[in-house]
């Protein structure tokens, strides 16, 4: 089917064409207050067509599957009258070899998993969501590329409340059920909730801060999009003009890795059919590359990083290389400061400078002499993302797979210690 669509578009005058047919079957159970609140199932088919005609570039996503021919005609009509995209430099071509498909095992009974969560939460309140997803796609391009992929995943994101303002959050994300541990996630969230009881209002000031993988996952999510050449070229990235320059502490190595068998963002190829790869974005603190598709790569005079996104290069799995410190050693290394277990609502004042703020939520702990001495609430990190990356001073040896409502890009990150972070709070 994608091959037929590609040929049809070529017959109608297109120069470059990429067609992908996608199918997915997804289950979700939502729960709150130790009750299942909704059980859902989605069955979806879609077709994505990208084409160029004399550098006029258009794209469509079709879920109205009875009208594909009409959509193709409309798309060609768009291309014929659109102005040329001067910075368009074509799609991938070549004979590629793809990794073998790895079967995933997500054979779980979702209701039983949720029941076990309720049992562990016991007299605390648990809320969250569990997904079980099966998806497949096949892709064909006018450059002769044909490929297909399929995979499955399971994930749970849950929050446990000891009281109205004492909560903990955790996730478990996996491609195979041997790596999926909802009960451990629930126990972690419950432990954090229990430790958060009686939190006092926090103070503003500058603190050394230990971020949990969940919290760092949210920040990496925002960082990941700013490594996309599209956002760099749009003036929406503090990484602009910084290739080869120090953008993080020398202990920081950050990768985009679409090949990890365990990564929720992994696949055999990108949206142009280029085999997935592992890219070093930051090496010992130095920015090495942006994320590219074929067209943005040619504009920047480099090779594609296999991150198409046909409009905008996109991250796959972000991987922050772990360090040597155990969780206990990270607390000792922090000495005095704050341990933040989760955050949300990260918003930039200026993407080109990196000024932003984000709000810690769930357990926020005061650390004295390397030990947790109490919990606080109602603070905000108001700082600069570039500065935070440069101020990273230690990395844990405990990378965790993070993907949830506030971390759209799957990532693997350990605990991270950052020096001298600006904390603000409401004035009255």
């Amino acid at each position: 089917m994608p091959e037929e669509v590609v040929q049809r578009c070529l017959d109608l005058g297109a120069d470059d064409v990429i067609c992908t047919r996608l199918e997915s079957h997804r289950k979700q159970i939502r729960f709150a207050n130790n009750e299942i609140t909704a059980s859902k199932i989605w069955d979806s088919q879609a077709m994505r067509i990208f084409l160029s005609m004399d550098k006029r570039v258009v794209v469509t996503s079709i879920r109205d599957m009875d009208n594909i021919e009409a959509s193709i005609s409309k798309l060609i009509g768009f291309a014929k009258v659109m102005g040329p995209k001067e910075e368009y430099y074509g799609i991938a071509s070549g004979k590629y070899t793809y990794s073998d498909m790895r079967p995933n095992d997500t054979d779980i009974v979702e209701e039983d998993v949720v029941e076990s969560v309720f049992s562990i939460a016991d007299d605390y309140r648990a809320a969250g969501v569990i997904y079980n997803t099966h998806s497949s796609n096949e892709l064909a391009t006018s450059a002769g590329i044909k490929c297909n992929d399929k995979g499955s995943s399971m994930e749970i994101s849950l929050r446990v409340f000891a009281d109205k303002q004492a909560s903990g959050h955790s996730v478990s994300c996996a491609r195979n059920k041997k790596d999926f541990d909802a009960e451990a996630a629930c126990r972690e969230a419950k432990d954090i909730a229990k430790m958060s009881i009686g939190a006092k209002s926090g103070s503003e000031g500058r603190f050394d801060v230990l971020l949990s993988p969940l919290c760092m996952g949210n920040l990496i999510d925002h960082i990941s999009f700013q490594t996309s050449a599209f956002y760099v070229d749009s003036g929406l990235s503090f990484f602009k003009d910084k290739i080869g320059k120090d953008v993080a502490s020398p202990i920081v190595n950050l990768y985009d890795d679409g090949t990890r068998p365990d990564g929720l963002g992994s696949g055999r190829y990108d949206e142009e059919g280029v085999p997935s790869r592992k890219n070093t974005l930051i090496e010992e603190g130095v920015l090495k590359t942006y994320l590219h598709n074929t067209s943005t790569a040619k504009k920047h005079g480099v090779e594609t990083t296999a991150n198409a996104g046909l409009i905008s290069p996109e991250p796959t799995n972000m991987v922050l290389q772990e360090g040597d410190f155990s969780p206990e050693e990270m607390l000792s290394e922090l000495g005095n400061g704050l341990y933040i277990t989760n955050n949300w609502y990260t918003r930039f004042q200026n993407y080109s400078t990196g000024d932003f703020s984000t709000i810690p939520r769930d357990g926020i702990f005061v650390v004295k002499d390397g030990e947790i001495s109490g919990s606080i609430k109602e603070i905000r990190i108001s700082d600069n993302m570039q500065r935070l990356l440069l101020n990273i001073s230690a990395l844990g040896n405990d990378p965790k797979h993070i993907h949830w409502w506030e971390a759209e890009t799957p990532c693997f990150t350990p605990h991270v210690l950052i020096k001298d972070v600006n904390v603000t709070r409401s004035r009255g």
Partner: protein
Amino acid sequence: MEDICSYALELGLKRSSYVEVKAERSVSNEFVIKNGQPETSGFDSSYGISIRLLVNGALGFCSTNNLEKDNVRSMVDEALRMARAASAHVKKPIVFSKEEAHSNVKYSVKERSRLADISIEEKMGVLSEIHSAIPNDVKLAGNLMNLDDGLTEKYYVNSEGSSIRSSIPVISFFGFLTVVEGGDSAQAMLEKGAAMGWEAISKWDLPNYVAGEVSTLKEILSKGKAPPTGNMDILCGPEVTGIASHESCGHPYEADRILGREAAQAGESFVSIDMLGDRIGSEMVTLVDDPTLENSFGFYLYDDEGVKARKRQLIKDGRINELLHNRETAGQLGLSSNGSARCNNYDREPIVRMANTYVEPGDWKRDEIIEETKRGILINSFTEWNIDDRRYNQKYVSREAHYIEDGEIKYPVKKAPLEVTTPKFWSSVDAIGDDVRFFAGNCGKGEPMQGIPVLMGGPTMRLHDIQVGGSL
């Protein structure tokens, strides 16, 4: 649409106490320029159905865009199976509030100039015109602008006799512009949105709107001073009044948050059910949410559970007056829904949402408020903002702000921060203008995420004696 909906409804009703089916066909076109050059433009089209049902107090939901009867049957079977499995764990059965059925309802938004009749060249031409209108003396480090338009046709039917058909066109503009000046930079995220036809373009006058905003940013960058600190009055322009209405009143009054259903995602609320009637703001504050505003971005006349929409007074004379409900939250509390159930596509469940949220006008003129201010900052617009997941601690950083002393605007201010609790914000209001304006936005909530069009607005409003400081 009707045939497949009737088929699914009958299938579901054989084994459940309540069923609703929604079919939706939508097309949305997107036109994009980046740094003045055409980017990748295109369109999305979708057509599918969802079925939601109750089985022994458990809620099942399924959706598909494969409308072959065999597939629809298997989807309904699976939703029933999952709901039945969930019902074995139910301690408090889900009960929907009792609501009037509305049968054979049909409504639409009339377009004076049909979006579908406007050529692609003309739509792209609007973006080029906006870009050309940016003054030569304003230096941009980057800009990205979208013009989107679309049409959504819905057919809703439930097992209680409701059948509602709607057709709503939507047009929106989004611009992200970075202005640089004297080694500093600032960004503007500009948005317009309405349920109307192409006539919106002339109403919005986008070239002047965008040119004005970037010129203002240039002036702030070149002449702005650091914000003063200490206690002073804060004058919120309509854009700031609007975002605060949305974030610190609309969201915490969503009953599903209060009852914990969104706890693991968007969070809960500092408001509890027993706070109805409590004072939350000064007496002059009345804040509403109204989906029925004609041509508004959040417009609808019947919500996505078939309940007739109406204006909701969330704060009345400074007191918590009403929460936002769908049939699930209203049923849990023994109330009636006030028509706040919305979903952003056929494949999403209807949850409690805002529509158009704003502060009702007062009797002050904006100039009078400025003249009567001894020392303060007028924050006309904002960039960075956020609020905690109980909707209690919020922050807005100014895009455009001015220092006021002895009733006069003295000089522009850069990046003035307003970081304040919700009760402090609303109880500090001591003057409300008559200059209500609205601003478009896409509100995020739900899992999977459902971005939904809303308006936020209100008049210029003064907060008395606010402590300013604590920014970078």
